[in-house]
């Protein structure tokens, strides 16, 4: 083996070793790397207890309620399987909308209501002109009416 070959072998072995080490570390810290938990995860007791955490999901259609004369809002966050009510006092981000993604930070009360101190909107990776969005909305309308009827 030429010394040059040996050096490349060391470089590759080193990279593989680092890769494996990092993969193990990331795996071990998996729960600290998630930015938010879904309502299903929270209800399965996967969320941290005794410290604030974030929940994420969709704002359920028709669930947004505003209290009179205050900035307090109530809405339901759902991951389509499980849902959770969130209470928040403050300004909502511009992109906050029913049927859209949301991430809320706060604590879970004993009554099962999540008290948020911060609400962020999470948008998706789709970019389209308003006309295209309207066309898709139109096409989906029939299906959505059926599902909201139950």
């Amino acid at each position, binding site marked *: 083996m030429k010394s*040059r070959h040996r*050096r*490349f072998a060391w*470089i590759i072995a*080193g*990279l593989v070793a*680092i*890769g494996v080490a*990092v993969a193990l570390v*990331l795996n071990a810290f*998996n729960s600290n*790397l*998630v*930015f*938010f*938990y*879904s309502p299903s995860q929270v209800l399965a007791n996967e969320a941290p207890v005794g410290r604030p955490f974030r929940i*994420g999901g969709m704002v359920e259609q028709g669930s947004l309620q505003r209290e009179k004369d205050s900035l307090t809002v109530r809405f339901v966050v759902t991951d389509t399987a499980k849902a959770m009510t969130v209470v928040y006092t403050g300004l*909502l*981000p*511009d*992109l*906050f*909308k029913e049927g*859209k993604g949301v*991430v809320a930070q706060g604590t879970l009360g004993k009554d099962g209501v999540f008290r948020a101190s*911060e*609400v*962020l*909107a*999470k*948008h*998706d*990776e*789709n*970019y*389209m*002109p*308003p*006309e*295209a*969005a*309207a066309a898709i909305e139109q096409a989906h309308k029939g299906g959505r009416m059926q599902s909201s009827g139950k």
Partner: protein
Amino acid sequence: MANSWYRYASPASFHPVALRLAPVFALAAAILAIAGLYVGFVVAPTDATQGEAYRIIYVHVPTAWMAMFVYLVMAFWSALALGFNTRLSAMMAQALAPTGAIMAALALWTGAFWGRPTWGTYWAWDARMTSTLILLFLYFGVMALRGAIDDPRRADRACAILTLVGAVNVPIIYFSVRWWNTLHQGASVSLTAAPTMAKTMLAGMLLMTFAAWAWCIAAALWRVCAIVVERERGASWLAPDPALKGVT
């Protein structure tokens, strides 16, 4: 055939080629950027959910891609520098670090300005953003390490090792939005799926990507020329050339 390529591993024969290629790439970058900005800001429609704020994508995505890609290229040259012990490979890696750092900084900066109107925050410690910040610090670290070691050949080796160790961060950035729940949305453009963007938006973004690509090449080539001249200043090929004296 192979021998004719090895010839350019010598700084003396690479320097004039790089000096001639750099302006070509710089011109290409300017033309592509003008075209890309025109398509992005004039031709492309507004976005249905994000309105005009989405147009930051035309700077944010190309710079973020380049920040990752430049690091991989830097790691490639570092591996060659360690394995073959070639001077020019190390110089290429050295020349790429500031360019990559600028790209990473731009991606983070434009990302913050995008996050405020859409998410409602400038910054969040989610996996995508945190790993990109680490990428910026890796670029800074490589540059600082080089500055801290006087002997350039020792600096080459130390920087190459640090660069290769840090390369593990690049796949983490790329796959972070898939591996973990993040505030950052998933990829709109990938090699495995059709892009989830309107065609004109995508065209503008790709034009800007090629512009960023060309600019990075031009900047790196000019910088590597300066590094060659600085590090080979005692060499016979450099000293007696009266034409080069005017350049430096």
